[in-house]
């Protein structure tokens, strides 16, 4: 019999709709694998067997009744443990919320439940989304399935590892400064950071509200588009969601890149592992061979991205984490881990009287200049291609004692959050058996175009077939 955990979401969806497999049987296989691998990888904080089996049973009834279902019906999906799930403990990866059980669902959760997607578990993460490696979780680090001595990237560490190891077919994430794209790059996955406001933030534990983008990780580009079809759209509970209309993201996904203008901003190719540079350039050549035009370009304020981001983000973090006072829910502030404490102190400082102008106000001004860099460049090119990480997945423990070095892991991802534009991480090869990723970045609300470019490249290379040996 075929091992369903090795298939893509689209393939499994076809099996379900053709009644070649039952949703209960399918989810049983994924639950078994999740339990078996969790001891090794620590990608889940909770595996929700009871919820999953109940939901799967319902889907089998709907299929038996010949109901027309969304392709995600019956599909096992894991949720980053920042997503509020009614009746299912939601910890944010922090001991502060170790006992917190939400009484409502995040909008993304509601939408995925409404199309009968199955909740298989809640995934591990850097507590509150604070981290680039997964090591800041109060529930222990998650390990990279391609090399157990290395980090999987963070903060959506457990979500990436759950998908990469075949414990589910898609997982949600949040991306405030790279938290979906970096783990996607380190784990050979497609990871989408949508345009700010494309997907509702309601019910997702807030990190930095002007930067938080809600996305997901999958094995393939097509699978990724199927999930965005469900989660995208305006939400009355999040007033920053956009009313901009969108059509089926899988439509025209095979259109190709003929005549497309791809920009390569020089600032992103200066300070990185030369082998990663070679891989990204080689991917660009593949796209050129398929008919795209490559244009050298520049985003001149790139070097100020990390400074600007690490002022604005902790400022907003200190404000958002002020609500955890153990009066309405959760434990006291002494339970915050070291990284959350560090960011609360930093953000409180940069917002405090006498320092506000020099740090926060200055950063908000530079943020506008960074946004303008992108606006200008997208008058000349359709998409940009950039490396996602300057280094290969690093060793566990390598950067934990040096916050500044850890923050610099985000050098190629944070400018995109400051600008608010969408970015798709697409795997572009392996070095020493470790995955590498590149970003395809476009103007506001160009997710459909990003999928077309990613799909064209993926058809040529199929890196997703290179699975970890577990």
């Amino acid at each position: 019999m075929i091992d369903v955990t090795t298939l893509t979401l689209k393939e499994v969806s076809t099996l379900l709709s053709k009644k070649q497999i039952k949703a209960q049987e399918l989810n049983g296989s994924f639950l078994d694998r999740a339990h078996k691998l969790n001891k090794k990888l620590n990608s889940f904080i909770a595996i929700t067997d009871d919820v999953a089996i109940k939901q799967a049973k319902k889907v089998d009834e709907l299929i038996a009744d010949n109901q027309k279902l969304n392709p995600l019906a019956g599909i096992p999906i894991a949720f980053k443990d920042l997503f509020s799930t009614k009746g299912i403990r939601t910890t944010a990866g922090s001991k502060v919320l170790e006992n917190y059980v939400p009484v409502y669902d995040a909008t993304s959760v509601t939408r995925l439940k409404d199309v009968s997607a199955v909740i298989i578990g809640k995934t591990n993460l850097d507590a509150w989304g604070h981290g680039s490696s997964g090591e800041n979780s109060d529930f222990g680090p998650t390990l990279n399935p391609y090399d157990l001595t290395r980090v999987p990237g963070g903060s959506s560490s457990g979500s990436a590892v759950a998908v990469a190891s075949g414990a589910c077919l898609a997982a949600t994430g949040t991306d405030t400064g790279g938290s979906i794209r970096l783990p996607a790059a380190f784990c050979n996955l497609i990871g989408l950071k949508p345009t700010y406001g494309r997907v509702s933030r309601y019910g997702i534990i807030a990190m930095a509200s002007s930067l938080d983008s809600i996305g997901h990780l999958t094995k393939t580009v097509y699978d990724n588009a199927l999930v965005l079809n469900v989660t995208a759209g305006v939400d009355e509970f999040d007033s920053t969601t956009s009313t901009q209309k969108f059509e089926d993201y899988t439509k025209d996904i095979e259109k190709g890149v003929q005549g497309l203008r791809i920009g390569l901003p020089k600032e992103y190719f200066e300070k990185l592992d030369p082998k990663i540079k070679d891989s990204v350039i080689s991917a660009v050549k593949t796209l050129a061979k398929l008919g795209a035009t490559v244009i050298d370009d520049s985003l001149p304020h790139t070097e100020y991205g990390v400074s600007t981001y690490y002022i604005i983000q902790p400022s907003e973090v200190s404000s958002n984490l002020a609500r955890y006072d153990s009066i309405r829910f959760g434990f006291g502030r002494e339970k915050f881990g070291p990284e959350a404490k560090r960011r609360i102190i930093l953000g409180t400082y940069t917002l405090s009287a006498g320092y506000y102008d020099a740090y926060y106000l200055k950063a908000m001004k530079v943020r506008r200049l960074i946004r303008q860099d992108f606006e200008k460049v997208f008058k000349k090119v359709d998409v940009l291609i950039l490396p996602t990480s300057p280094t290969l997945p690093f060793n566990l423990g390598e950067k934990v004692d040096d916050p500044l070095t850890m923050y610099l892991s985000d050098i190629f991802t944070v400018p995109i959050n400051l600008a608010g534009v969408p970015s798709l991480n697409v795997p572009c090869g392996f070095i020493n058996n470790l995955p590498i990723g590149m970003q395809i970045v476009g103007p506001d609300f160009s997710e459909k175009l990003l999928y077309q470019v990613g799909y064209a490249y993926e058809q040529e290379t199929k890196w997703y077939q290179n699975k970890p040996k577990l």
Partner: protein
Amino acid sequence: MSKIKNQKSKVGEVSIDYVARLANLPLTSAEKKTFAKQLGDVLGYFSKLSEVDTAKVEPTGHITGLTNVVRGDQTAPSITQQEALSNAPRTYNVFFEVEAIFEEQS
């Protein structure tokens, strides 16, 4: 940016206590020492921003361009009082219970 330089040493030496008090955040003396050094490094790195001329740049808090988004003033089903209190460590009748903030007159 000499102003920032002074502030850097201040964070490194003096004001962690003050900032922790503003944030209502209990820190151990070991944490204070570690954070002071680490935050000094990070703030030092930020001084790079002084190179950027922002004299004529308006700040931006977010990139959506949206202003004053409101919804209709209509009632809709919400969580119950019991649900709202379900995670509270301490309740009194149907309220959250907190420490008294005014001292009783003796």
